[in-house]
């Protein structure tokens, strides 16, 4: 059932329901808006700002901005793409993202979004922070170098797993992910390898131990098609299509 309400995304009419964000409506319509901290399965976070769009002359995050009748949303102009590239370039220098050796390479959203936005070179000076690995958990490893503080593990652990294992501590450049355990170590937390929080990481920060590179080159998620086609947008579309199809069957 359609509400009959629409807004314009790059000149194209997008239908939306009451309560939808621009991101919700765009994904449902099969239109890709680059994003990292957003995952359709969870409440919007609005922290990475990679989904920045221009709404009637104002830059806003599409994952938190409610859709509104007749607004004009720019999702793909050079200016918007340049803003996104800048945000990504900052993310890449703030941590240590060594794609050639990372086991998430080829299936990493940060890498895939960077390719999508044509981020082909660094712009800012690398911070090269000295960050550790927490491998204290028998089944899970956490790489602080690769964490982009998207908060997805925090939301998944709280909202799906009911454990509250993760939290972002500190402010600004000193922010970091901390673990809810007596020692502060991941190994002393309640996290289990089957938890939603472990599988939701968009980068290679939170991963199961003792495995890696098991998916051959050529078969990884983003090896042959861009994230705009095979990313979580596609997942959301397939979920949406199957629910629509069950609705019509009823």
């Amino acid at each position, binding site marked *: 059932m359609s509400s009959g309400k629409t807004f314009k995304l790059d000149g194209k009419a997008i239908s939306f329901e009451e309560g939808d964000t621009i991101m919700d409506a765009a994904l449902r319509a099969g239109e890709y808006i680059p994003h990292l901290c957003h995952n359709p399965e969870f409440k919007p976070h609005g922290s990475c700002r990679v989904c920045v769009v221009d709404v009637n002359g104002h830059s806003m995050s599409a994952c938190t901005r409610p859709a509104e009748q007749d607004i004009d949303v720019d999702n793909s102009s050079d200016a918007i793409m340049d803003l996104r590239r800048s945000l990504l370039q900052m993310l890449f220098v703030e941590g240590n993202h060594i794609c*050639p050796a990372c*086991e998430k390479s080829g299936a990493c959203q940060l890498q895939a979004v960077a390719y999508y936005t044509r981020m082909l070179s660094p712009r800012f000076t690398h911070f090269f922070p000295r960050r550790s690995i927490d491998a204290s958990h028998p089944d899970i490893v956490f790489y602080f170098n690769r964490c982009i503080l998207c908060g997805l593990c925090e939301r998944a652990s709280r909202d799906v797993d009911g454990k509250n294992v993760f939290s972002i501590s500190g402010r600004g450049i000193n922010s970091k992910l901390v673990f809810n355990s007596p020692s502060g170590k991941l190994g002393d937390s309640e996290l289990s390898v089957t938890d939603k929080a472990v599988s939701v990481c968009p980068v290679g920060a939170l991963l199961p131990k*003792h495995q*890696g*590179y098991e998916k051959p*080159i050529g078969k990884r998620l983003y090896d042959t098609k861009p994230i705009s086609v095979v990313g979580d947008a596609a997942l959301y579309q397939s979920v949406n299509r199957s629910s629509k199809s069950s609705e019509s069957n009823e």
Partner: protein
Amino acid sequence: MTSELETAEHPKGLKRTVIEPLTRVEGHGKVTLLQDEKQNIKQARLHISEFRGFEKFIQGRPYWELPVLVQRLCGICPVSHHLAAAKATDMIVGAAELTPTAEKIRRLMHFGQTLQSHALHFFHLCSPDLLFGFDDEVRHRNIVGVIEDEPEIAKQGVLLRKYGQEVIRVTAGKRIHGTGAIPGGINKSLSKDEIKYLKRDIGQVIEWAQQAVELVKRIFFEHYDYHMSFASIDSNMLSVIRNDGAFEIYHGGLRARDEKGNTIFDHIDYSCYGDYIREGVKNWSYMKFPFITSLGQENGWYRVGPLARVNNCDFFPTPLAERQRREFTGTAEGRTVQSTLAYHWARLIELLHCSESIAELLNDSDLYGNELLNKGELQCCGTGVIEAPRGTLFHHYEINDDGIVKKANLIVSTTNNNQAMNESIRKVASQYLDGNQLSEALLNQVEVAVRAYDPCLSCATHAMGKMPLQINLVNDKGELLDRLEKRASGEINRTV
């Protein structure tokens, strides 16, 4: 066995000549020569002017990253590091044996790697010296000169290398720095289409490989005495060997023989390499000097790579290469072949063996099997040894209870040949440079000796013969007597 030219007795006041960078080798290195006032050579040393540091910075990384991470040491033979690390981590994950599919895919990858690396070395880097002479005009003595004068040979070199790279791509996912081998096995087998694709050209590859062996033999026999004596040194030989004594580059025990062919040790479990081999250090080099423990540092240094492997094996398991091996070892008259330039000959016999082995493997149905991984109980350490194109390669790791690397030791092929390369340049220096005014052609003879070993000095960079170079001759009063400058264009001028 170590030459007295390693360290001059009275270095003060001697003229110092530097060949820097060495050209047409992998990576960056230099040779320093000290001469007295009569131009007599008093000291000759090969220096590696780069530092990689992988053993240090992989500490703190999870063990399952090692096969992918450590292969970044090298852009020419990354598969060797990839597989040596994979073999070490096989031990860590308790995989005593691989599945037939995993082992054969890895072997195929390694044959492809050795084939492409040997083709690169012979055709691109060394054929200009061998085809045109060590004193050929420098602007002609390069791969472009080969393309102009011998287009068919150049084409075969390029296409042989391409074929090896394609084998790597199909098995590892990429031509350089793939991910095929993982702890306990591999991440993909081959499809029937991929096997069909590789089968298409293998007949041609074998034919070209045979022609390449005949070519190097013709060159060798044309000036037999010269090739046998040039940079020739007596050394021990170390290599991996199969249980039955057959030539082996993927897995086996360690065999060492002396210059007369007597066995020093045989079929040694490479996990115990530390009991048989030690690494010495010298205050003038960043590269270590491995030696056979029982013989000591002075007499225990050895050579690795094609010359050692072909000398050490009892036979090749493939017919064409075996026929060539017999002719090769027949020149030694009961000893081991010690000619440094025979490295080229041995290398191309290996290239032929790799092409034959690839053809054999492509008919094996295990290549498209589905059982890819074996794992057991996690172990605290693992050692992987493989015969890389340039020689025996050791990877040794220890991990903590969390699976994080706490210690790593890598002895790379070129390190094993360190003393031997030094001895070879000393032989050349004393044979051809001693008492002579330096010239580009004479200095190239030093480089020819080093090139025969196919050293991978930094493992990732290429110097293709047109690097700027300046050689100063200074007397004991510090006065400049002579200066040769080689410009980036290849032009050489005497500027004093």
